[in-house]
């Protein structure tokens, strides 16, 4: 099949999945007594209704794109890097730790250092999961899940322990950073152009690595057939650890950007579950890089727009999560039905 044909097939599946989940969500809204059309209108107006809201949406889009494109690297060799959530958190912790010696502010160079520290933190956490998998024979799903809890525990311990605010240790996080260590937004927005550029760079980097380098091809080969990869001398274990570490670095960057660009402190919920959401995005995109930015945008609109639901309709904002989950289930269902249909046709 040609590239264009495969791409349009992916798009077709996506359209079918969107339709399916729309039907399901409408039913759900009818059952809960909310007017469906009005609810959808509020959702989208809340996400893209004004320039300010669009800015918020793009601010959510950035970590989602960073994490989703990072996950392409681990999906290529067939890894389920569910530990990406913890890798985001470690990025945030390392960045915060790097900036703590400068309570009175410092130069932008220090800020850059914090981003690099965040990348190292995320890579380190992913490296552990990778080594657990290749050396310790712990499946990356279990290793990652365990490390996510450890990362969360570590954040809480830091916030309520050594890094607590003087006098008031609380869920509201650590002492805010000195404003000179904030990643400045465009005037009037909480959106930093630096973050935007980094996210775009990340996705292009991943596309380049996977499509045009021998390393990327080796990753895919490992995912296709680890035993053959060993025979071809592609060092599958080394490739797995590398893919994990690079994925972790990008996730760590997302975490660091949340600290310096959005919250300006370390929070218990610093990852905002973007790692899990990114897993959904990547699956919904059928692991195709070019579908990642639009899907991330759609998910970001849902996330930001859903904030309006409790205010205007007294609906819970978790509706956005429901829609996202249903979408992913729908795409798998579409895949499954397609296979069934082909099987039936072949038997005829």
């Amino acid at each position, binding site marked *: 099949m040609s590239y264009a044909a495969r791409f349009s097939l992916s798009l077709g599946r996506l359209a079918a999945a969107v339709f399916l989940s729309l039907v399901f969500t409408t039913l759900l809204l009818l059952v809960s007594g909310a007017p469906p059309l009005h609810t959808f209108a509020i959702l989208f107006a809340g996400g893209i209704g004004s320039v300010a809201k669009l800015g918020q949406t793009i601010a959510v889009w950035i970590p989602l794109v960073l994490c989703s494109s990072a996950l392409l690297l681990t999906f290529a060799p067939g890894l389920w890097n569910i530990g990406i959530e913890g890798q985001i958190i470690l990025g945030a912790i390392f960045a915060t730790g790097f900036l703590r010696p400068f309570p009175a502010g410092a130069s932008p160079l220090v800020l850059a250092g914090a981003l690099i520290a965040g990348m190292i933190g995320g890579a380190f956490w992913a490296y552990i999961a990778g080594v657990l998998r290749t050396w310790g024979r712990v499946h990356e799903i279990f290793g990652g899940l365990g490390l996510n809890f450890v990362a969360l525990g570590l954040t809480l311990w830091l916030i309520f322990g050594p890094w607590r605010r003087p006098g008031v240790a609380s869920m509201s996080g650590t002492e805010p950073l000195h404003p000179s260590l904030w990643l400045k937004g465009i005037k009037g927005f909480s959106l930093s152009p630096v973050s935007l550029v980094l996210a775009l760079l990340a996705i292009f980097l991943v596309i380049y690595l996977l499509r045009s380098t*021998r390393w990327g*091809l*080796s990753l*895919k*080969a490992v995912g*296709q*057939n680890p*035993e*053959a*990869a*060993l*025979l*071809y*001398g*592609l*060092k599958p274990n080394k490739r797995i650890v590398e893919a994990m570490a690079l994925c972790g670095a990008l996730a760590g960057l997302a975490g660091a950007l949340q600290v310096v660009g959005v919250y300006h402190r370390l929070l218990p919920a610093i990852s905002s579950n973007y790692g899990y959401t990114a897993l959904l995005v990547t699956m919904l995109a059928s692991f195709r890089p070019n579908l990642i930015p639009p899907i991330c945008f759609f998910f970001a609109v849902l996330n930001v727009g859903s904030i309006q639901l409790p205010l205007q309709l007294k609906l819970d904002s978790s509706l956005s999560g429901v829609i996202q989950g249903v979408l992913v289930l729908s795409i798998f269902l579409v895949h499954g039905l397609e296979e069934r249909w082909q099987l039936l046709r*072949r*038997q*005829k």
Partner: protein
Amino acid sequence: MRVEFQDIHKDYGRVRANVGINLVLEPGRIYGLLGENGAGKSTLMRMLAGHTQPSRGRVLFNGKNAEGLNPSRALAMGVGMLYQDPMDFPALDVWENFRLGGTKRDKKRTLSRLQELGERFHFRLSPQEKVSELTVGERQQLELLRLLDLGVKVLILDEPTTGISVTQKEMLFTTMRQLARDKGRTIIFVSHKLTEVEELCQEVIVLRQGRLVAKLQSPFQSDELLKLMFGDEHGGTAECPERSQPGEGEFIQLEDVQLLGDKYILPDISLQIRPGEILGLAGLEGSGQELLLRGLAGLARAAKGRIIFDGEEFQGRPYLKFRQAGIHFLPAARLEHGLFPDLSLNEHFHLAFPPRNGGRDNLLPEEGIRKFSIQGQLTTSARALSGGNQQRLLLALIPAQTKLLLLEHPTRGLDHGAGQQVWNHLLGRCRQNTALLFSSADLDEIKAHSHRVLIFYNRQLVADLPNHAISVEEMGRLMAGQGRAV
């Protein structure tokens, strides 16, 4: 049960797998189904067992139309198939596996039924053993008993003699004769092996290119059967190119090597191999030949002894060092272990031949596809290739500087022509002083191509003889643990 195929057609897209087959199978007879790969044998049998439906035509059981057949309905009507790879559950106990899908019984009754059936056919299966601990032959016996317990009237056996011992084969044949004679069962024996078909079957059905070309009564003429299977152009007994003489010197030496495998240990191997020499490895599956090949490839660890290539010691070194020294291993399961199913031909060439020192000294993808006559394009995925083309792709991916080639079943599953192409290429390599070790379940292949024969029995190397010093019959005896030891 009387089975009748009426004008059966089966198309897979543009491929015509079965074309207008008319055939009647009577109860109480043993039929041989012959044909090269892709002749349509499996398709026909899969239709009988309900795995697929004909595009046109009907299958009748005792004169009744069997429409909309699926595997469970076929089984309910009395059609059972013994697959090449036993369809069982390795994690279960023998008796549990026996009970699956069968009549509902408690453990006690299951055990006594299993014992009763086992005794009738002289199969010795211990009910409490795990299926995973049985040999291929024993697993086949278990599956056979399970099918008989379900009351099958038509029994299809797909290449049942691969991987089982000579005694087990004899027992299987006796059982088949008993079932056909005493119980009036229809038996269909699908095989490549002429001698076995001649020995067992009363009638033989030959398929070629999806068509039924002959239905003959015993006794059969081998030449005639070969001609029917392959057409005149193959002639059946075509000569293989001449083997070259091995070169001088012993460039590979194994001294009292003990190899550690996943499942067993292969002790005390001492061996010398000369450049260009061809060694055939004979033995039942799991007898040690697999481990020797993997040990020489650096994929299994040597616990003791020395492995010497070109005067350098290699034991304990990682696989990549073996590979860099010019040792190349091709596993038996091509798509499962040797290729990347969804990657393209082009990507395979890129992975196999990393660009080194600026230029590449190896095959370009286009060249490789042409030179090895692989039917596919640069963008074709490995999965879409036929078995023969997959094997040619693997051959094309062997680096030119390879000094030792290790092959597991190099022609397994290939038809006559494709197998010969493989050997043409391999013999060409050996003329350029590449040494070759290959394992095969086909003793004629070993006899035809090796300078020396290594025979394995019970996870030991029991014989190392020059080709002229041993006959195929003798190989068979040694593999089964009988006869002289050297």
